[in-house]
């Protein structure tokens, strides 16, 4: 019985592949073979479940079986965004904007004109004939292949995505904003490709909104050349019926810098995974995030930083506030390979439990094969400090206000790590708004 149950969602994806095979981008070229191999591998492994150590706290198989997502339909015509702060989050900024509805690029709603010379910004289908896109799609990002299972699913079914290439030494003039809107129920598979050549710089803002019961499967592959610099700010605020699965795979060249920040507010079940590998010395990676959950929300942050070469620095900080019966998960791993001397690897996870029924699971791991390194990790879980509350109340601040101040202060120092200054302010506003709605 159990076996039949568990295969349901996986079978749905395999069926979806069979029926869409001929119309998916790249159906007539090399990608078709790559997709066929990927779906075969996926069919063999199935969806990840709790018995896999990396998925110990999030049962994606069960979640998707229960939800039973069909492929999301292609949405044509006008789109009305919900009137939420998240939906209009980055709209006040001067930016290039790419809109994806149900996982498909909508040129008519996007606005990315007059890009600087040396910047290419296109949909997935348009770059498949180019060598750099092929290289990225075939690259093996994580040697441990921990992401493989879900990436195979994405490779087989990816229907669209944003592809950004910035040529050597070019700086993107303003942020690229990717707005993903789930207008209808169903599953979508998106693949974003980002290549920043030597010395290139750019900022990507990403927001995921919608009120549909959707499953967003997003894989973003990033390659940073020597000295390149990418800032990435992501906001996820989808509906309580939605499932979000985002995988970021990055390869960071010598002296390059990747700074990524994720704010998670929405979704019934979400999993954000990052796999960062250093390919050249002197590089730096920041993978940080904040989450605020309520009701029965479940958010899993999974982060692996692979110090494959010497003299790199990485920092991972995730902080979360858990209300209702929500559950937070942090799983992190810093790997320091033999010879990756002078590594500086840091990892921190902190969670604040606001309700009796909230739960937190953390597993910050270190795996170290070199001796001349500085590595540290920390993990704390607790409720609001009674002393701090008392202190504020004794100065005439009402309890509700005091709690708000303390929670916002708790999240503020991780939001301060978000790379783009104006985006940072927007995230602060969203967190504060989240708190207004919360019944704490």
């Amino acid at each position: 019985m159990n076996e039949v149950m568990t295969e349901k969602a996986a079978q749905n994806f395999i069926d979806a592949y069979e029926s869409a095979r001929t119309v998916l981008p790249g159906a007539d070229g090399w990608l078709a073979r790559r997709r066929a191999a990927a779906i075969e591998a996926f069919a063999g492994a199935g969806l990840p479940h709790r018995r896999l150590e990396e998925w110990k706290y999030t049962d994606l198989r069960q979640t998707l079986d229960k939800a039973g997502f069909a492929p999301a339909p292609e949405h044509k015509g006008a789109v009305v965004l919900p009137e939420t702060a998240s939906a209009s989050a980055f709209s006040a900024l001067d930016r290039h904007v790419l809109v994806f509805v149900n996982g498909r690029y909508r040129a008519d709603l996007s606005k990315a004109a007059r890009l600087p010379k040396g910047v290419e910004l296109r949909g997935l289908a348009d770059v498949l004939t180019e060598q750099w896109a092929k290289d990225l799609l075939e690259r093996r990002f994580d040697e441990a292949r921990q992401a493989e299972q879900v990436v195979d699913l994405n490779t087989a079914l990816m229907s669209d995505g944003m592809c950004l290439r910035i040529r050597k030494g070019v700086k993107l003039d303003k942020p690229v904003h990717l707005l993903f809107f789930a207008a209808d129920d169903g599953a979508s598979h998106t693949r974003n490709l980002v290549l920043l050549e030597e010395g290139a710089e750019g900022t990507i803002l990403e927001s995921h909104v919608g009120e549909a019961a959707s499953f967003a499967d997003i894989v973003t592959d990033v390659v940073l050349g020597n000295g390149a610099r990418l800032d990435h700010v992501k906001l996820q605020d989808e509906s309580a019926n939605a499932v979000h699965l985002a995988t970021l795979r990055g390869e960071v060249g010598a002296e390059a810098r990747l700074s990524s920040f994720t704010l998670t507010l929405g979704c019934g079940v979400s999993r954000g995974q990052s796999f960062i590998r250093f390919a050249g010395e002197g590089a730096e990676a920041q993978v940080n995030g904040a989450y605020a959950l309520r009701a029965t929300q479940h958010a899993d942050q999974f982060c692996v930083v692979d110090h494959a070469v010497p003299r790199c620095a990485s920092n991972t900080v995730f902080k979360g506030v858990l209300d209702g019966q929500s559950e937070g998960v942090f799983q992190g791993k810093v790997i320091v390979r033999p010879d990756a001397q002078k590594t500086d690897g840091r990892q921190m996870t902190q969670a604040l439990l606001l309700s009796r029924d909230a739960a937190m699971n953390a597993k910050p791991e270190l795996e170290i094969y070199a001796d001349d390194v500085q590595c540290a990790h920390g993990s704390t879980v607790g409720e609001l400090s009674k002393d701090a509350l008392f202190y504020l109340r004794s100065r005439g601040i009402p309890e509700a206000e005091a709690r708000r101040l303390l929670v916002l202060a708790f999240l503020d120092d991780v939001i301060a790590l978000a790379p783009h200054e104006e985006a940072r302010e927007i995230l602060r506003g969203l967190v504060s708004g989240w708190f207004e709605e919360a019944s704490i």
Partner: protein
Amino acid sequence: MAAVRETVETVGEVEKYKYGFSTDIESEKAPLGLTEDTVRFISAKKNEPAWLLEWRLAAFRRWLTMTEPTWAKVTYPPIDFQDAYYYSAPKQQAKLDSLDQVDPKLLETYEKLGIPLTEQKMLAGVAVDAVFDSVSVVTTFKEKLAEAGVIFCPMSEAVAKHPELVKKYLGSVVPTSDNFYATLNSAVFSEGSFVYIPEGVRCPMELSTYFRINEKQTGQFERTLIIAEKGSCVSYLEGCTAPQRDENQLHAAVVELVALDDAEIKYSTVQNWFPGDEEGKGGVYNFVTKRGDCRGANSKISWTQVETGSAITWKYPSCILRGDNSRGEFYSIAISNGHQQVDSGTKMIHLGRNTTSRIISKGISAGKSSNTYRGLVSVHRKAENVRNFTQCDSLLIGSKCSAHTVPYVETKNPTAVLEHEATTSKISDDQLFYCMQRGIGEEEAVALIVNGFCRDVLQQLPMEFAVEAQKLVGISLEGSVG
């Protein structure tokens, strides 16, 4: 006898492991391999009652359906469980009335190991139960303990004399179905210590067990059970060694501790099984299940371990904090050198209100070794006001070794305050330079710095052990610098 070939002479050459000799003593063994008959043989040898045989057989049948755990960060060739002896006992003519009748060769062995068995030679205050391969050889200080009402005897004797206690507590902390090695142990355990401290008694002396594997190709499967009744208190020490052999020997022990209301148990281990030679050949596989149950309110269980030996260590002394206000502690030093692999840590399961726990783990890896801390702190929904502090530091000596930290933190109660911190680093050149500049040799300087690094844990050991452990830390790291 094959054992003679590789005995005392070799010890001189390899000073590092001075317990590497074996004793040429005639022994009685169970037939090679493991079948239901082996289990029956062991049970019959021990004159066990029917219920215990059934208990063993049930465990054995269960074991046949289980598979070895593979999640630990250790690698070794598959173990052939049929190519080992599961019972070995020194042959003796008749029942012994006093110490004088113990085979003098045996006594000599223990003397070499530095354990004064004869009461005359005893420093005041340590009662020893010595286990040689599969049987307990002698238990000292029996009368004095009996006066206080303390029962301290080999497990087989406890089965015969106090069956009601054994029946009540055996397997109540580590059930027979717990894990692969604990189940194996339940089927074939042959010896171990049994300790019972009656209500309100402070055990008048430190209790101690000494384990030694002597026979070739044998596994050692002891089972220790300590029960501390209400308001009682006991400190227990355990030490282990084995001869140097180029085959791998299996040690799969189970230790169960039960602390009732207001009771306190302190369990200290200095584990120095043979770690294998320079090429990583031989050594003991130390696959041990140790668990304490703070069953009563205000009870306390404290584990202290110094792990320097064994080719592979797979060991997680844990505390189940069931009683309100109970406390669990885990202090550990795990030193690995050569080709040793250590995967060790603890579990603190908070079930009761106001329970607290503290974990201090110091891992030191040198040579080509791998050293992993793996721990779990879990707070259940009804456990209010839980407090945990975890600190695990790793020190790396040399560029070929590795250190890993895998802590799990699971909380279902908002009133819990949990803190975890870990660092990994190497011995700083400044510290080393400082010592050497003052005329201290490099190896000695490393030992000194490492001792400082471990101080928090060493302080937890009972006095007699602390001194020895400090020396052991130095010895274990010999040959790791330069």
